């Protein structure tokens, strides 16, 4: 099996707030991420597809096709958007890296026509990332 990884970057704003928490509790739990005016990140998304290369093309999945899927499913939805207000899939959820990566996994998985979605790695900054991996993955794709 071969793994291929495509990287894209998007910029978005967000803030963390749980309406069931008090003002003080929100500040305590979420710290400066609770600022109601929001703040932003340059997110880096690495998407890994695992599969056997098609003998006719030598490709697991044509990267042009993967690029188009990422543009349509992720970039058009999230790039230069406010994640709390403008992404319906995140409505009612706190837009943490965990929840954004999960939504991206759910958006991409049914769209992958060759191979299987193996890993979604979402960097919020160089010092923080979340991995979503297939339950059956050995995790080897993590080194990307």
């Amino acid at each position, binding site marked *: 099996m071969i793994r291929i990884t495509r990287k894209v970057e998007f910029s978005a704003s967000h803030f*963390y707030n*749980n309406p*069931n*928490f008090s003002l003080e509790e929100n500040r305590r*739990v*979420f*710290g400066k991420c609770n600022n109601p005016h929001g703040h932003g990140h340059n997110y880096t998304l690495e998407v890994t597809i695992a599969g056997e290369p098609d003998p006719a093309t030598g490709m697991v999945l044509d990267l042009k096709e993967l690029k188009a899927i990422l543009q349509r499913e992720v970039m058009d939805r999230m790039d230069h958007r406010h994640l709390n207000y403008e992404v319906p899939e995140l409505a009612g*959820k*706190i*837009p*943490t*890296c*965990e*929840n954004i*990566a*999960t939504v991206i*996994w759910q958006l991409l998985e049914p769209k992958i026509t060759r191979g299987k979605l193996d890993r979604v790695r979402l960097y919020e900054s*160089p*010092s*923080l*990332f*979340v*991995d*979503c*991996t*297939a*339950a059956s*993955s050995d995790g080897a794709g993590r080194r990307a």
Partner: protein
Amino acid sequence: MKLSLTRRYDFAASHRLHAPQLSEQENQRIYGKCNNPYGHGHNYTLDVTVTGPVDPSTGMIANLGDLDPFVEREVLAAFDHKNLNEEVAEFKAVVPTTENVCREIFRLLQNFPAARLERVRIEETSKNSFEIGVEDFA
């Protein structure tokens, strides 16, 4: 689908690779310039990976407000700007190769209360990295 969260930290420390049970010549042959008796240092990069359910009230596997002070207290306070051989108890008797540093940091972090420690990965330089997973730690 499985989720994990990885947080990156840095620390700077000195060490010397020297096994007291080996002769001077053997230490020189095995460890080369890392055996220099005065030691040398690195900027280490430490990636800490935790897993667990996402708390629906916070959207988080682990709050960095909990993880950062835990790693600071358990590891960075003891390792950053220190001589690992002289100042970290474990390395009085164990050679502070990055393999052994990985294992020791995993041991120090494994009781993080808010999520399960999954992996510790260390870059000793931008060319060398070492990692230990929960399945490797015994």
